[in-house]
């Protein structure tokens, strides 16, 4: 029995080989190179590179820019993803309880999600512009006075979060709606009741049944959100005064503007370490019974 099985295994590996080799050469090798760079003092502005062990990591961990970027990224992740989940779930419940939804409505809600990120950053930069943006104008009409969305440090972070919520709530919505539609119909037949029973139903039946799908949606969203770059790069470039300087923007500036390869690589690996820790914790659990 072992013989044919082993040869079948080899066949399977053969099919996987082209993709495996490709990924190794184009992605894994550069990451290993980056790991090496992070253990040196490599700068593209200086010809001499020498091995410094973990010194670069030590300097990253005591670097106030790095720490503040990590904190900003965490704030961004927690606030934006919580809002996306809550709004997306509410929308999904609302769509599910309609008698019919036209598929066009779903296709339309997919547009913010698929839209080119630089264009997304561009239109929000236009709408939030303090001189002629429609959002400050609406704020003024509603009596909030002059709000400098992109010039005030706190409002700039709020702007980044609003943009992200706009772009990614449809992601939560579509996955959670697909999940709700997979639930047995009886769950919803019982739902046509007064408010308190409906809430009870939501927390004691719908949510537990949806636990795995919610886990999948959140895990994927966190994974994508950590990589957020293009939209914020266009909207604020990390400003004003580094108020929206997410970790990806910091790495880009250190590596490609200041050409401090060692520092950028060490930062990348620390981020990667956090992502891996997070994913080892969630994905194995969430995807295991897929």
């Amino acid at each position: 029995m072992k013989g044919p099985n082993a040869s079948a295994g080899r066949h399977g590996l053969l099919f996987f080989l082209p993709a495996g080799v490709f990924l190794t050469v184009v992605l894994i090798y550069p990451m290993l190179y980056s790991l090496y760079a992070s253990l040196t003092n490599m700068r593209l502005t200086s010809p001499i590179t020498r091995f410094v062990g973990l010194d670069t990591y030590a300097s990253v961990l005591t670097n106030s820019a790095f720490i503040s970027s990590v904190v900003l990224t965490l704030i961004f992740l927690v606030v934006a993803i919580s809002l996306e989940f809550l709004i997306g779930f509410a929308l999904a419940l609302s769509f599910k309880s309609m008698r019919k939804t036209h598929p066009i409505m779903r296709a339309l809600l997919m547009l913010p999600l698929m839209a080119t990120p630089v264009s997304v950053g561009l239109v929000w930069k236009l709408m939030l512009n303090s001189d002629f943006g429609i959002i400050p104008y609406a704020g003024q009409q509603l009596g909030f006075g002059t709000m400098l969305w992109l010039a005030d440090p706190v409002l700039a972070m709020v702007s980044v979060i609003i943009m992200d919520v706009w772009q990614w709530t449809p992601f939560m919505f579509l996955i959670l709606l697909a999940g709700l539609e997979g639930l047995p119909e009886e769950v919803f037949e019982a739902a046509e009741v007064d408010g308190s029973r409906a809430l009870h139903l939501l927390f004691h039946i719908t949510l537990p049944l949806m636990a795995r799908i919610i886990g999948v949606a959140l895990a994927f969203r966190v994974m994508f959100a950590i990589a957020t770059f293009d939209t914020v790069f266009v909207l604020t470039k990390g400003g004003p005064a580094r108020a929206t300087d997410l970790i990806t923007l910091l790495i880009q500036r250190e590596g490609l503007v200041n050409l401090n390869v060692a520092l950028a690589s060490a930062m990348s690996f620390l981020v990667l370490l956090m992502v891996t820790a997070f994913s080892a914790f969630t994905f194995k659990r969430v995807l295991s019974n897929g």
Partner: protein
Amino acid sequence: MAETRRKPWLEAAHVAANVALVALFLFPLAWMILGAFKSQADLLSPSPVWFFTPTLEHWHFIFDNWNVEKHLVNSIIVSVATTILTLALALPAAYGLARFPVKGKDAITFEILSLKMIPPIAAVVPLFILARQVGLYNTLAVLILLNTAFQLPFAILVLKSFVEEIPREIDEAATVDGCRPFSVLWRAILPLSVPGLICCAVFVFIFSWNEFMIANTLVGGDLRPLPPIVGLALTHRGILWGPALALGVVVLLPVFALTFSLSRYMARGLTFGAVKG
């Protein structure tokens, strides 16, 4: 259905509310498209202009001054080539992982997912250095290779979930008919994987079409695809709002066309096949 007991006006209000919410989500995109046809004065007016005489001045500007057609062709070449290369590598890999008792299969699948978790920015710095060393810096080829590398883990996992749904009897019947594993893939699995391939192709095409960071870092001048050109409009001595918006709309058009026509294939791709949509 329980909902039928509901009062009709309540149902109507519910539908209206949901339509309004969808409209709210679409507003920024609509505002952008309107903006691309507004004159400079209307665009920079302190109070929003809703009704205006459309003008094509920004469209003339971007085609006359920014060589949009050239960058458009670059974008098309990169996205189409990336899509073909990705699917060609991903389908056999997905088939191998879905069907054969490969040693350490779960570990491989998890590794593939981990690769997808590398934030592209973490890879861009070393890729920038290595691309210069091997002479691929400032070529369309490097964009195709890198976009493929970044999309491949996604494509393998999605296709694997589709292949797993094809009944094994199909493979067995083909094998009994004398097919070698490769022709089973080619003759039996490939035709049955079409919905999965479409799902993957749409996402891979759109993601490589939208890709900004790698393109902005690894190519310059005439070889740039469209997204970095939008970036250019933003930094050029103040912002040329009209042309920037027109260009932003040009980039979005194929994305919208694809999303709109193929959305029914796409729900599943959002979670790499983990939730069947």
